[in-house]
């Protein structure tokens, strides 16, 4: 199984729908300071159900919705989708392609979907249980936070070892 695509619209600085098609192997994301590279990492952390806005560099969860520029008005909703392929032997659903989607509206309402079917956050969490992907695992290393891998409180580090067991 590998990650085939990430799509974002209305998420942080991605006012228009943008996507990244991925292959196995090594993909590099480049660009000048402030252009939106780390926002892609935040999109990935968010789509798996992250509940703490601080881990997405915001004060409240609404900060992930595109809040406008000089030329454009703010929008009312953020949406991110992540698609995995060759998932048939790995995820309990048995499909070849699995897409998870998360939406948040300014009203505070949030939605989760698996292959376009509405579901609960719990369902997304259960789907990826034990694969090393989710809000607690080490699959995503944020900018400047490499020390966290080494210096997190012992109970945080234990959680990683347990996840691996």
């Amino acid at each position: 199984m590998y990650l085939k695509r990430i799509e974002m619209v209305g998420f942080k600085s991605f006012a228009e729908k943008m996507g990244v098609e991925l292959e196995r192997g090594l993909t590099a994301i480049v660009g000048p300071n402030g252009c939106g590279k780390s926002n892609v990492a935040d999109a990935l952390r968010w789509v798996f159900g992250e509940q703490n806005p601080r881990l997405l560099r915001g004060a409240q969860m609404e900060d992930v919705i595109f809040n406008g520029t000089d030329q454009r008005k703010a929008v009312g909703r953020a949406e991110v989708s992540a698609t995995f392929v060759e998932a048939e032997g790995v995820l309990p659903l048995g499909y070849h392609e699995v897409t998870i989607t998360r939406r948040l509206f300014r009203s505070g309402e949030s939605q989760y979907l698996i292959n376009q079917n509405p579901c609960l956050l719990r369902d997304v969490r259960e789907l990826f249980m034990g694969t090393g992907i989710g809000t607690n695992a080490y699959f995503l290393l944020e900018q400047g936070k490499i020390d966290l891998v080494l210096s997190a409180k012992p109970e945080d580090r234990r959680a990683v070892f347990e996840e691996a067991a």
Partner: protein
Amino acid sequence: IRELFVGTFEKIRDTFNEIYRRLFGGGRAVVELLEDGDVLECGINISAQPPGKKLQAISLLSGGEKTLTAVSLLLAIFKVRPSPFCFMDEMDAALDESNIMRFLSLLDEFKSQTQFILITHNKRTISVADVIYGVTMEDSGISKIVSIRLPKEEAKSEAVVAG
């Protein structure tokens, strides 16, 4: 469950030391369970010894040594329990040229089991990527994604131009 945890822990501990020695060309890395009774409840302590130096607490290591130690631990966990992908945001920022090459050659070995997505400003990292995406902000404040999907050779010269 206790046997399972201890078994996994010992495998990660041994692999961590093995990968650390590969990256640093010697020395050793130690991860141990803190002594407080029940194995499932106690904390974990990490210390590292770059070649020729004394074994020291993590806090005394340099910026680059910390990055490489963290990478060794991360890949040790991945070896014992592979993850389909790993996203790293400017992990190479503190590394000097020769450590970047070691870091990239290690990732190369893990590429067959784990997909890596790296945000980077470093030309060497860009030059070994299979696929390159550029994020731009032509209209200020709005991000767009552009694929620079060239085959590896062309990507090398493009990346240098994009500097």
